[in-house]
């Protein structure tokens, strides 16, 4: 008993050693986790935590939706008027686009070409958590390897591109959002076909950079994935241009993009399961050699 007490006292007295041992334990945890030694433990313990988070998330969305409904009634009325006006305009455009689509269909049939979007296979997943660590913008979904999810698969909603799978366990996966500052997607302006790189801005918006100076960029232009780089299929909607300005280096243009998705209130997403991202890293190694 006495030896136990004196042992504890010696621990307290030697705080430096205590701190060192604790930090070494943390470092060992980090290394073990990084090399995958803790994966079974992480999977086992993450499962109940994800289940709790999923329940909390549903409650959070309900509360958010209820509060939002009351607060946004006036805004919705205004928005409704705007949408009615836009609808009238779009109906006119729809007639024109149907004509173009029928022309396109005839040409595509001739070439025996199948649209990529139509051949996509999806797995629906529920968003169960947002990243604890505010430094990175990722979400967790309730589908994993058991559902055919793999690293690199694109994640979308009906409104457009959400991100791509970066980590996967048996029952859950982590998705890096396109709004993450370190994420980069090859984009294309739908009207002028000008290409650029879309990445997340620190304020949660999107920026399309490296647009050629001579390319015409207008507010409201739709930005879609170009498919360049092989990371994402082509023609997934990324967002709409809200403003454009020359880049700081003066060699290209930079556009602010607003995604049609509210990433903070995502509830369900679709994982594109039949898209195989192209691994170009082998060419980097060849280049270095």
């Amino acid at each position, binding site marked *: 008993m006495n030896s136990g007490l004196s042992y*504890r006292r010696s*621990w*307290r007295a030697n*705080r430096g050693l*205590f*701190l060192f041992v*604790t*930090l070494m*334990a*943390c*470092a*060992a*945890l*980090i290394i*073990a*986790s*990084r090399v995958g030694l*803790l994966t079974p433990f*992480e999977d086992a*313990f*993450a499962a109940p*935590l*994800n289940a*709790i*988070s999923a329940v*909390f*998330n549903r*409650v*959070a969305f309900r509360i*958010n939706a209820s509060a939002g409904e009351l607060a946004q009634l006036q805004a919705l009325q205004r928005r409704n008027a705007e949408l009615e006006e836009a609808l009238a305009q779009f109906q006119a455009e729809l007639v024109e686009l149907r004509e173009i689509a029928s022309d396109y269909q005839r040409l595509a049939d001739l070439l025996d070409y199948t649209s990529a979007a139509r051949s996509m296979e999806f797995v629906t997943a529920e968003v169960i*958590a*947002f*990243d*604890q*660590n*505010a*430094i*990175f*913008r*990722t979400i*967790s979904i309730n589908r994993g390897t058991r559902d055919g999810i793999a690293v690199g698969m694109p994640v979308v909603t009906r409104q457009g591109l959400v991100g791509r799978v*970066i*980590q996967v366990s048996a029952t859950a996966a*982590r998705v*890096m959002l396109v709004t993450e*500052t*370190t994420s980069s997607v090859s984009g294309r302006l739908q009207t002028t076909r000008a290409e650029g790189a879309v990445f997340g801005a*620190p*304020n*949660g918006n999107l920026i399309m950079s490296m647009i050629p100076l001579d390319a015409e960029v207008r507010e409201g232009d739709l930005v879609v994935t170009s498919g360049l780089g092989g990371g994402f299929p082509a023609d997934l909607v990324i967002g709409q241009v809200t403003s454009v300005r020359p880049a700081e280096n003066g060699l290209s243009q930079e556009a602010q993009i607003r995604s049609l998705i509210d990433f*903070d*209130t995502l509830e369900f997403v679709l994982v594109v399961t039949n898209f195989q991202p192209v691994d170009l890293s082998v060419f980097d190694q060849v280049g270095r050699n």
Partner: protein
Amino acid sequence: MQTFVGVLLLGLAAALGSTFMPQIRVFSGMPDLVLLLVLSMAVFNPLERAVAWALIGGIFQDMLSIMPLGASAVGLVLMVFFIDWVRGQVFRIGLLTLLGVTVISTAAQKIILLIVSALVGLPIRPLETAAYVILPTIVYNVIFLFPVYWLTRRLSRARAVPKT
């Protein structure tokens, strides 16, 4: 505070941090409930126990994050030792002292996470993180410290009541 209650609170804080808190995000900043809870627990508990809370809280956080297990615990453990050092410098750690510690700890915790991220090969943007993550998180943490501190104090006092 009883171990079971502490673990439950930390788990709850981690779950809230990844569900409710992103709904009130300002830029990329949101309240860090686990950090606040660990800091408050460190005020009312001995060092060994507070270190255990820091490790458990950090692991919970990393379970719900892209970070490797143990990454968040590094900062939390250092902050617990910082509180222990502050305790030796002042007569009593009150709410005002804890407010100051919270501001320093929030910034330190995020900077430590950035360093760990860089060490394990995750891409980082330090200046943007400072402006869009650290500053709003400090403001949020200062606001949320009051209810967290109140709750932890109540739980600690309930535990401290001697049996008759």
